[in-house]
């Protein structure tokens, strides 16, 4: 525990563990952000863009088939319908609007799955700002379509060859660029991580997910949900949907990390589940590290969760016990991916598939706890009955097709997938 916890925003977590060079920029950002939030014209413009450009509010969809098969009412918060296909754009529209307000002409970003890179490139195109994106060389390969999208949007993508060549290394490189070009450049952080005030800014900008969900579910079932589930990479989609529910004691919150090949080995990305307190990328939080304090490489089939750190607010929520952090492995996530595609016609991002993959366990847990709970609603009139769970469907899976197809083939389950030649003639 630091002796002066007041320097941390979230209990003993958060802070600014960065080079001295960046301090004035972080102070400037904190100030500019505080002013912007108080400025009705900034908020009006942000609201207009969220509504008309991003497509908010996103819908809250009752997944009929999934609900039937799980024996609980599953509601999907459709962030996959956002412009560019994930929740990331909620954040970048706000931050790039702020960058413009601060007079910055150049924006940099790190990206893992490429969704944040695309979302940043998009917002920069919209405002005519120069955009440069750092992306691990391994992710450049496994998320190739997103690289192409960024380039079409006018951004320059810098493949990063150091370390594990994934998100962590992209963020290292973005920090190096920022420290070099700090006067001209706005660093648009993509998750609820990084030095203060980023975790706060990103949470605030993503909280619209939870605000809408809370109003929508009350509107539908006349009460709050029993549980809210989200995947956790850096933690932005999760904190975005959790934030407005934190004060609702009756709502259980579940953050699902990537267990990769299993949390008992070394190849996973379950930072809160298996990590310990450390500093990475500017804030004090949980990290995956060895006994010597070296950061470990994370592993997940999902590029967006493949990160050995996590936003500091999640560390705090974990210690407080307010949120349950759990993990789901590659196989389970893949299974959930296919299941949602086939039963609901929605192809989820692999990140999101981790949240979906936890649902069977979650439902079972609730049932074990309340064996006499009322059964599922039998018709629409009894909507409020039963167990209601909101899942943050943080993004769509178009970007993951190659990854998933590769696993399907390599595991010989390609028989699920059929292209038939049409003979044009009956037998």
């Amino acid at each position, binding site marked *: 525990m630091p002796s002066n916890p007041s320097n941390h925003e979230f209990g003993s977590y958060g802070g600014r563990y960065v080079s001295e060079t960046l301090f004035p920029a972080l102070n400037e950002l904190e100030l500019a952000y505080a002013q912007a939030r108080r400025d009705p014209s900034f908020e009006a413009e942000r609201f207009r863009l969220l509504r008309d450009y991003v497509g908010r509010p996103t819908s809250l969809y009752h997944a009929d088939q999934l609900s039937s098969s799980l024996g609980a009412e599953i509601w999907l918060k459709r962030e996959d319908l956002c412009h560019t296909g994930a929740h990331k754009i909620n954040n970048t529209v706000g931050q790039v609007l702020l960058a413009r307000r601060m007079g910055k002409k150049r924006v940099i970003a790190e990206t893992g799955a490429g969704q944040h890179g695309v979302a940043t490139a998009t917002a920069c195109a919209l405002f005519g700002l120069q955009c440069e994106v750092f992306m691990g060389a391994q992710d450049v390969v496994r998320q190739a379509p997103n690289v192409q999208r960024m380039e079409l949007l006018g951004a320059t993508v810098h493949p990063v060859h150091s370390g594990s060549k994934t998100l962590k*290394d992209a963020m290292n490189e973005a920090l190096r660029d920022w420290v070099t070009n700090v006067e001209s450049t706005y660093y648009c952080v993509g998750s609820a991580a990084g030095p203060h005030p980023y975790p706060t800014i990103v949470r605030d900008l993503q909280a619209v997910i939870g605000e809408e969900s809370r109003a929508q579910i009350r509107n539908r079932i006349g009460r709050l949900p029993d549980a809210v589930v989200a995947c956790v990479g850096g933690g932005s989609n999760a904190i975005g949907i959790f934030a407005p529910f934190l004060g609702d004691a009756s709502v259980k919150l579940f953050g699902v990390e990537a267990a990769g090949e299993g949390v008992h080995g070394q190849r996973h990305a379950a930072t809160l589940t298996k990590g310990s307190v450390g500093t990475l990328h500017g804030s004090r939080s949980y990290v995956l590290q060895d006994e010597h*304090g070296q950061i470990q490489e994370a592993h997940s089939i999902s590029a967006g969760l493949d990160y050995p750190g996590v936003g500091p607010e999640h560390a705090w929520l974990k210690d407080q016990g307010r949120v349950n952090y759990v993990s789901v492995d590659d196989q389970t996530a893949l299974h959930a991916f296919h299941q949602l595609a086939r039963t609901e016609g929605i192809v989820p991002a692999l990140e999101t598939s981790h949240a979906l993959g936890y649902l069977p366990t979650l439902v079972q847990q609730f049932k074990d706890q309340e064996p006499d709970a009322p059964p599922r609603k039998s018709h629409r009139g009894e909507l409020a009955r039963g167990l209601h769970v909101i899942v943050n469907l943080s993004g769509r899976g178009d970007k993951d097709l190659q990854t998933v197809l590769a696993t399907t083939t390599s595991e010989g389950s390609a028989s699920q997938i059929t292209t038939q030649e049409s003979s044009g003639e009956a037998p």
Partner: protein
Amino acid sequence: MSRIEQALSRAQSENRAALVAYLCAGDPDPQWTPALVRAAARGGADIVELGVPFSDPTADGIAIQQASARALGKGTTLARVLEMVREIRTDCDVPILLFGYYNPILKYGEERFAQDAADAGADGALVVDLPPEHASVLRGPLVQHGLDYVPLLAPTSDEGRVQQVANVATSFIYFVSLTGVTGAAAPDLRAAAQQAKVLKVQTGHPVAVGFGIKSAQDVASVARDADGAVVGTALIKLLQECEELPVAESKLTALISELAAGTQR
């Protein structure tokens, strides 16, 4: 007066800047490090900054990134670096400033680190990603164990921060000559040194200039106004060319004495 302060005031009294040599502990091999530190001392380094390698060195350019990766690949840990210091101290008393990132120290434990570093014979610590607002957790134990805590200032630091940093410094302050990472080309070292001179007045502490100093000429261009000149990437690059320790030692000693020549005012 700490060993670091003594070195600085000796240089001052010789009307020259102090030469601070950065070496990455464990690169290219942990076994070489004590010999290389001695070689640097022989060449005329007033202070050695001994880099504790970290997996994610966000303040460093490619040369030191790769040096850190090589060192980690050879099993260098913070504990091992402290052992190296202990070994160096058997026959060499050049001031040693441990230089690195916070996470390995956090993991080791700040109190335990200060104790063990003092025991090993180190003289202080500089942690690039531990700013004054979070520093007390480490600075307290260091001071308690008689070690220096060396903070940084940057070209972007405003007056408020200069004071904040002045308040936590125990010996000198490390002034980063440019906005950038280690190994970057400094656009104007003279101006940086003049800035250091102003900071010295403002803070009441000696100020060394680092980042972008590669040659005796570079050293000379800061020596008049700054209290110290830090050379790092140039040394790392030199060592990369050497396949044998004896060659590395003699080349290092030679380069350092060349650089040391630039320290005269």
